[in-house]
C-alpha cells in the first residue's frame, strides 16, 4: 500500500500489544527461518507514513462504523481466531483442545498462557487432522526437549513437555495418504525425527484410479505420497524406552469422545472406518462411514481440522465458508448474487480466503486487495467533496483518548522485543517470550 500510492498513510491496529500475528503466535518454535520475515515487516513499520496501534480491540475500543468514518479505507485482516468443531458426543470432555489453543499455548500467546494441558496422565496423544498444523503439534510433543530448549518456546510449555509422559502420537485422518493436507517439508521433517519410530500401514497406501488422477494433477500430493510410501517400508528398530512412536492412521473418522474410567477426562476415541467415494458435485473424493467401529485409547486429543474466522458487528459474514463475502478483496454486503460493494471496506488474508496458505499465499492475496484499493482510488471513490473530510490517524487518537484506551506504539513493541531478547540470552534462547497481558503492557511502557 505504501509503495502503491504516494502520500498514503497506513495505520495498523492489533488487539495484541505485539505485532506480526501468526508469525509470532502460529509458526512453531523450531521453525525460526520462517520467522525471518519479521525483518521485512519491521522495515514497513519503520516507514514514517506507517503507524502501529497495539492493544486496541475492534468491537470494544472502537467499532467498525467508527473506523469507517475515520479512515478513507479500512482493510480487515484479522484472520481466523476460532476453530471448526466435530459436533460429536463428548467433545467438551477435559483433555480435548483445539490445535490452535495448543499452538498459542506453546507459543506464549497471552490468551492461552493458562491452558495447562495435562501431559502426564497418559502415554498416548491423538491429533485429529493431517495438515501442517497437525504435524506441528505432533512434532512438538515428540521432539527432544533438549532441542526445544534453545528455541523461543514459552517457558511453561518447555517445563510441561519435559515432564510429559506422552510416548505415542496418533495422526488421524478421515481419508488416505493422497488426501493428506500436509506438505513435503513438514512431512520430511517429522519423518526424520531422531528417536521416533514411524508406523504407516502398507495397506493404507493402495491407490485407486481417482487417487492416481489427484496425484497426476498435483506435484505436492505426489511428493507427499512418495515420502509416506518410503516411510512405510523402513524397518523399525526395536522400541526401547528411549524411542517414541508416531502412527499415521488413515481412513478413520471420529464419532465419539469417550470418558476415562473416573469420568473426568477423555480416555479414548471411537473411530469409524471410512471408504472414499467420488462426490459428483465437487469432483473431490469424500470419506463415507462403513459402519465398522474401533476404539483408540488416549489421554489428550488435539483437534486440528481447521481454523474459523469470527464475525463482528456490522460486517457481512458467510457462516458456511467462514469468510467475509468479497470480490477481489472488496467487501460485499452479503453472499447473495444481488450483493453490493461496501464502499471503503476491504478484506485480506484468511478472513478473505479461508484459513489456508502460507506467508507467500498471503503476499499474493495482499497484492490483489491492494490492486482493488488502488483501482477504486483512481476512480475517485474515496473523495467525496460533499461529506466531511475523514480525520485518519488524528481521528483514531481522539477516539482512543475518549475511551481511555492506552495503545502500544511500535516502539512499545520494540521495548518488549529488547527485553525478550535480553532474557533469552541468559538461557541460550533467541528470546524468552513475555506471556502475560499485564507484563506485556508493562514492558511496552518501560
Amino acid at each position, binding site marked *: 500500500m505504501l509503495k502503491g500510492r504516494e502520500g498514503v498513510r497506513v495505520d495498523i491496529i492489533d488487539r495484541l500489544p505485539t505485532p506480526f500475528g501468526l508469525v509470532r503466535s502460529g509458526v512453531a518454535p523450531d521453525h525460526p527461518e520462517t520467522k525471518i520475515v519479521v525483518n*521485512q515487516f519491521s522495515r514497513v513499520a519503520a516507514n514514517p507514513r506507517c503507524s502501529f496501534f497495539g492493544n486496541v480491540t475492534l468491537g470494544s475500543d472502537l467499532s467498525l462504523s467508527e473506523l469507517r468514518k475515520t479512515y478513507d479505507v479500512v482493510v480487515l485482516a484479522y484472520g481466523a481466531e476460532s476453530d471448526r468443531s466435530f459436533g460429536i458426543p463428548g467433545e467438551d470432555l477435559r483433555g480435548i483442545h483445539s490445535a490452535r489453543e495448543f499452538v498459542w499455548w506453546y507459543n506464549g500467546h497471552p490468551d492461552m498462557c493458562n491452558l495447562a494441558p495435562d501431559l502426564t496422565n497418559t502415554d498416548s496423544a491423538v491429533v485429529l487432522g493431517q495438515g501442517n498444523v497437525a504435524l506441528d503439534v505432533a512434532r512438538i510433543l515428540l521432539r527432544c526437549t533438549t532441542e526445544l530448549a534453545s528455541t523461543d518456546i514459552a517457558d511453561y510449555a518447555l517445563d510441561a513437555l519435559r515432564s510429559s509422559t506422552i510416548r505415542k502420537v496418533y495422526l488421524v485422518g478421515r481419508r488416505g495418504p493422497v488426501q493428506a493436507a500436509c506438505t513435503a517439508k513438514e512431512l520430511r521433517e517429522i519423518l526424520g525425527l531422531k528417536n521416533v519410530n514411524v508406523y504407516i500401514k502398507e495397506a493404507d497406501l493402495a491407490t485407486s484410479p481417482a487417487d492416481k488422477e489427484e496425484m497426476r494433477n498435483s*506435484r505436492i500430493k505426489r511428493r507427499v505420497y512418495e515420502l509416506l510410501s518410503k516411510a512405510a517400508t523402513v524397518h523399525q528398530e526395536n522400541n526401547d524406552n528411549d524411542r517414541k512412536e508416531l502412527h499415521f492412521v488413515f481412513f478413520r473418522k471420529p464419532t465419539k469422545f469417550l470418558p476415562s474410567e473416573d469420568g473426568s477426562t477423555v480416555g479414548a476415541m471411537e473411530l469409524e472406518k471410512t471408504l472414499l467415494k467420488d462426490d459428483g458435485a465437487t469432483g473431490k473424493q469424500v470419506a463415507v462411514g462403513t459402519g465398522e467401529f474401533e476404539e483408540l485409547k488416549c489421554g489428550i486429543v488435539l483437534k486440528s481440522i481447521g481454523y474459523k474466522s469470527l464475525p463482528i458487528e456490522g460486517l457481512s459474514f458467510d457462516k458456511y465458508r467462514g469468510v467475509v463475502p468479497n470480490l477481489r478483496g472488496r467487501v460485499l454486503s452479503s453472499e447473495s448474487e444481488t450483493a453490493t460493494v461496501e464502499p471503503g471496506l476491504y478484506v485480506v488474508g484468511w478472513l478473505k480466503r479461508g484459513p489456508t496458505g502460507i506467508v507467500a499465499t498471503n503476499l499474493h492475496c495482499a497484492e490483489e486487495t491492494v490492486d482493488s484499493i488502488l483501482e477504486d482510488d483512481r476512480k475517485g471513490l474515496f473523495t467525496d467533496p460533499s461529506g466531511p473530510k475523514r480525520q485518519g490517524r488524528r481521528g483514531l487518537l481522539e477516539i482512543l483518548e475518549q475511551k481511555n484506551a492506552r495503545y502500544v506504539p511500535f516502539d512499545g513493541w520494540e521495548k518488549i522485543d529488547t527485553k525478550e531478547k535480553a532474557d533469552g540470552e541468559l538461557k541460550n534462547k533467541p528470546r524468552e517470550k513475555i506471556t502475560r497481558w499485564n507484563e506485556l503492557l508493562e514492558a511496552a511502557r518501560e
Partner: protein
Amino acid sequence: IFFSLPLYRFAASTYVQANIAFCLLKKNLLVKSVCVYRSDDLSFALVFVFQKSILFSTATTSSHHDEGGDDKEKISVTFVNKDGTEKTISVPVGMSMLEAAHENDIELEGACEGSLACSTCHVIVMDVKDYNKLEDPTDEENDMLDLAFGLTETSRLGCQVIAKPELDGVRLALPAATRNFAVDGFVPKPH
C-alpha cells in the same frame, strides 16, 4: 556543508604541502570537494565541502559487492517483470539472483532472506537451455517450489540460482499471478 581552515602567511613550500593535502583529500569519499582559497593578504584557506548525507544501506543479505573492482567476473542477467518490462543488470559470479535483484532495486521478494523457508523469490528461467545448466534443486528447494505460485517446468528459487559464466545472458521472469505474458513469444507451461 563546508568549513575552512585558515592558513596564514607561509612560505612557498607550504603552498606545495597544501596542494598535496588537497589532492589526497579529494580522494576521500566523505569530502565532496576541496578547494584552496587565496585571499588578498596572501593567506590561504582550505575549503572542504562534505557530502550532504552519508547513507548506509541496510542490505538484507550480505554481499561482497566490489565497487569499481574489475577482478570479479560478471555476467549479464535480465529480469522480466509481470507487466513485460525488462531490466538488465550485471551480476558478479558467485552472487545469488535474489541478492542481485535486491542490489538493483528489482522487486523480488525474499521473505526468509535465502534460508529455504519460503517461495517468495520464485523466478522462471525463460530459456530451457539455461535451466538445464543449473544444478538440480535439492529436496529442500523442491519442497519450497511445491508451494510457489504459478509454478512452471523451469521454475527455481532466486536465492538458489548462483551466477556463473555459463549463465551469461540468462533471462528470468517474475511470475505473474493470473496475467499471462508473452515476451518473445514465451508462455510458461503450468506444472
